[in-house]
C-alpha cells in the first residue's frame, strides 16, 4: 500500500509538508465492526485448519488465516483500500474522513482585495471558470449547490455540496454531501496584505477519488496530478481576477 501513497500526488512531498494522514494511511479503519469480527473468526478457523492439515495446503491455509486475523484486528483491509471500499461507519458530516483520500494545498498572491476575491469565489457558479474540470455549479440554496465535473477516464461526476463555514472576506469552507459521485472538501483562505501587495490566497482540498486510491494513481499516471491541477486552477483564478481573462497563445 505504501507504493500507492508514494504514487499519488499530494500524499508524498506535495506542498513541502506531509499531511499527517500520509504516515498512517495504511492503518485507517475501513472495515465495519461486524466485518472485523468475521475476519478474525474466519481467520482463526482457517489457521486451526492449517495446523491440522499440515503441508502443503496447511501452509497456504495458515497464511490466509493469519492475514484474515490481522485484517480483522487492525480494521484495515488493503484490498478495500485499493478499491475505495469502506464498510466502516463514518460521520457523514466529515465528507472525506480523516486520514483518507488525497489532500492538496496551494498558496498564491493575487493583486486584488480580499473582498473582491471572496465575493467572486462565494458566487459558486464562477468556479466553473476557475476549475478547469468543473463544468457547472448550480446554486440550490444559500448553502447548497450541485456540481458537475469531468473526472478521470472520461467520467462525468455529479455531487451536491454545502458551504458549512464562511467568514466574509476571509474564509469559505465547503464539503460534498452524501449520495454524490465524489467525496470532496475544501477551504479557501483570504488574507489581505499591506503595501499594495494584494491578497494571499490559500486553497486546501481533499478528494476521495471515485475509484479509491487506484483512481488517483491512474490520474497521476496520466500526468494530471491533483496538485498540478490545483496549481493551474489557482493561476486561472489569479488571471481572471487580475487580467480579466486567461491568456491564450
Amino acid at each position, binding site marked *: 500500500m505504501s507504493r500507492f501513497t508514494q504514487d499519488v500526488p499530494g500524499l508524498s512531498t506535495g506542498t513541502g509538508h506531509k499531511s499527517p494522514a500520509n504516515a498512517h494511511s495504511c492503518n485507517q479503519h475501513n472495515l465495519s465492526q461486524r466485518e472485523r469480527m468475521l475476519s478474525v473468526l474466519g481467520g482463526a478457523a482457517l489457521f486451526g485448519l492449517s495446523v491440522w492439515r499440515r503441508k502443503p495446503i496447511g501452509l497456504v491455509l495458515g497464511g490466509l488465516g493469519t492475514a484474515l486475523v490481522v485484517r480483522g484486528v487492525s480494521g484495515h483491509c488493503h484490498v478495500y483500500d485499493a478499491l475505495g471500499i469502506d464498510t466502516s461507519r463514518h460521520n457523514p458530516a466529515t465528507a472525506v474522513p480523516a486520514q483518507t483520500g488525497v489532500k492538496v494545498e496551494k498558496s498564491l*498572491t493575487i*493583486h486584488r482585495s480580499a473582498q473582491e476575491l471572496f465575493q467572486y469565489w462565494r458566487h459558486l457558479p464562477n468556479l466553473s471558470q476557475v476549475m478547469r474540470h468543473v463544468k457547472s455549479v448550480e446554486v440550490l440554496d444559500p448553502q447548497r449547490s450541485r456540481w458537475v465535473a469531468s473526472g478521470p477516464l472520461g467520467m462525468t461526476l455529479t455531487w451536491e455540496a454545502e458551504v458549512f463555514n464562511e467568514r466574509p472576506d476571509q474564509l469559505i469552507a465547503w464539503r460534498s454531501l452524501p449520495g454524490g459521485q465524489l467525496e470532496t472538501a475544501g477551504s479557501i483562505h483570504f488574507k489581505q496584505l499591506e503595501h*499594495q*501587495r*494584494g491578497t494571499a490566497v490559500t486553497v486546501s482540498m481533499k478528494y476521495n477519488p471515485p475509484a479509491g486510491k487506484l483512481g488517483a494513481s491512474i490520474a497521476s499516471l496520466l500526468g494530471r496530478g491533483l496538485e498540478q491541477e490545483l*496549481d*493551474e486552477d489557482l*493561476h486561472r483564478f*489569479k*488571471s481572471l481576477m*487580475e*487580467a*480579466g*481573462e*486567461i*491568456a*491564450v*497563445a
Partner: protein
Amino acid sequence: MKAVCWYGKHDVRVEDAPKPTIKNPRDAIIRVTSTAICGSDLHLYNGIIPSMKRGDILGHEFMGEVVEVGSQVGTLSVGDRVVVPFTIACGNCFFCQRKLWSLCDNSNPNAHLAAKLYGYSGSGLFGYSHLFGGYAGGQAEYVRVPFADIGPCKLTAELSDEQALFLSDILPTGYMAAENCDIQPGDTVAVWGCGPVGQFAIQSAYWLGAERVIAIDHVPRRLELARRYGRAETINFEETNVSQALEEMTHGLGPDACIDAVGLEAHGCSIDAIYDRVKQSSNLATDRLHALRQAIYCCRKGGTISIPGVYAGFLDKVPLGAAFGKGLKLAMGQTHVHTYLQPLLARISGQGVERFDPSYIITQRLPLDEAPQAYAAFNAQKNDFVKVVLQAS
C-alpha cells in the same frame, strides 16, 4: 495571409497561414505595415532557443493599423495606427502595477514551462518560442495582440513607419540599458556591441547625462554609425586591446558603467572566446559571454554593469570574484517597453526636446516575401547588416 514561419535551424519560409482572430475580449488584430528582424531572431534561426515548433510565426518588432478590437478594448479604434511592445503585459498584476511589464504574471500561457527553468516566469513575448507563450509573431500580414488596451502605442501620421517601428523593442531596450547605469554627471559609459541596441544605448547614455561614451565592436560599419550618429569614441577590439585602451582613456579609473549590448553570440579573438565557441558547438549549452567577462574586468570599482541581453540559459567562467571584489552592481532583464513608449515617442516627434530620428540604423528594406534571404544574409554577412526592415504589404 503571408507569414514568416520557422521550420528548423537555418530554415525560415514565407507561407500561407490562417488570419488571426479575436480570442479574448482584450485582444486586437493589427494589419502589419512594417516589421523588423532582430538580432535575437537569429538565436531562433540558429536553433539556440528551445521549444520552437515547425510552422511557428516569427517576429516581435512590428507596427500597423488596427483592424479589429475585442469587446473590452476601450483605448483603440479600428483604423488607429499603432506600434506594439514586444513584451505582452496584462496591466494589473503585482509586476505590471510596478511598471515591470516584462515580468507580467498573466501573459505567458506556458508560465509553468518557463518557471521550471527560471523559478518564475516572465511575460509572454511575440514570436519567441513556446517557452515564452507560443504567441504568433509579427513578421506576417496580420497579428493578434493580447491586452491591446495596455500595449499598443498610438501614432500620428506625421511619423513614418521607419521612425516609429523601433519603439517596439530596440529603442526602449537601449534606453533602459543606459537608465540601468544610473548615470551621474561626468560619467564615462562603455558600450560593448554596436548593433541596434548598442547604437540606441549610446544615444540614451548621452541623453541621460553621460560625459563620454566609448563604443566597442569589430564591424567597421557599426563603429562608423556609433561615431557619426552616436557621437561616441570607438574601439575596434580586433585592432586594440580593449581593457588597456579603456584604462588609458579613463586615466586609470575605468569606465563608470559598462553596457553589454552583445548578449548571446559574442564574437572575440582571445582564448576565452574560442573556449565559448567550442563549448557551444559541442552542445555544452552555456551562453557565450566574452563581452560580459570583459565588461566586468574593465569596469571601475563600485561601477555598474548593465545587461540588456539577451541571455537565455546558463553560463560559466563568469568572473564573479572580480565583480564582488570591485563591488559592482549588475542590472539586467527584458525591457519594460511600456514605460518608455511615451517619453521616447516625444523624442522622435521632437516634443520639448531635440528631435531624434532612429531610422539611421536601417541598412536593408525588403518585402516580407524575401524574409528567408534576409535571415540568411543577416546571419552570414552580419557585418553589413545592421537592421533589416520588412514591408508586409
